[in-house]
């Protein structure tokens, strides 16, 4: 049983560009959350998707957007990249109940030059 898979694992972009990160959830999971982890910090919640809708959003600008597909996979899009967007982007899947733990992928490390 494959866990959460993310792609790409590493990427380098320049300021002003756009990036799309992809996530396939653990089998059986219907909920996908995205987190940003800057170096030396804890993960920060970006948003969560359930039933192809954004269910909750953290304190991130509209440059960050997402999508969930009918097969529960998800994408994170970031427009107009800034140097400060450089971070490890983590996708986590779970069942929808609040008591459920998150299962994380290995992350996509984005470097913005």
């Amino acid at each position: 049983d494959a866990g959460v898979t993310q792609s790409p694992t590493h990427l380098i972009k320049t300021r002003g560009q756009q990036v799309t990160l992809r996530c396939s959830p653990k089998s059986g999971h219907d909920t996908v959350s995205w987190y940003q982890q800057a170096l030396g910090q804890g993960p920060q919640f970006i948003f969560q998707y359930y039933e192809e809708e954004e269910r909750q959003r953290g304190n991130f600008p509209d440059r960050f957007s997402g999508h969930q597909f009918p097969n529960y996979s998800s994408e994170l899009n970031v427009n107009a990249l800034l140097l400060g967007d450089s971070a490890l982007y983590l996708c986590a899947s779970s069942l929808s109940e609040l008591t459920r733990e998150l299962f994380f992928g290995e992350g996509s490390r984005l470097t913005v030059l």
Partner: protein
Amino acid sequence: AQSVAQPEDQVNVAEGNPLTVKCTYSVSGNPYLFWYVQYPNRGLQFLLKYITGDNLVKGSYGFEAEFNKSQTSFHLKKPSALVSDSALYFCAVRDMNNNDMRFGAGTRLTVKP
């Protein structure tokens, strides 16, 4: 708003000694509390959670944690540390009304032989 504090950036213990990694939380209602571990360049792995019931919860790799409502704490413990326990540990909290799982800044545990 929910929040988590991990007061120690770093904890150092000798192999075979007991370890404690501290966590305090703040939520508006009943908390759902979680511990995760992160190895270098990897995603987070779930260790254990407290939802309700017995204040002492047991998890993976011999770890346990004690929920203390009066002190709003959820400290992670292990009776006998291993060198392989060296990693970054994150405490996280949700309340009953939030899909956002809020993480602490992390505590780096180093176990020396």
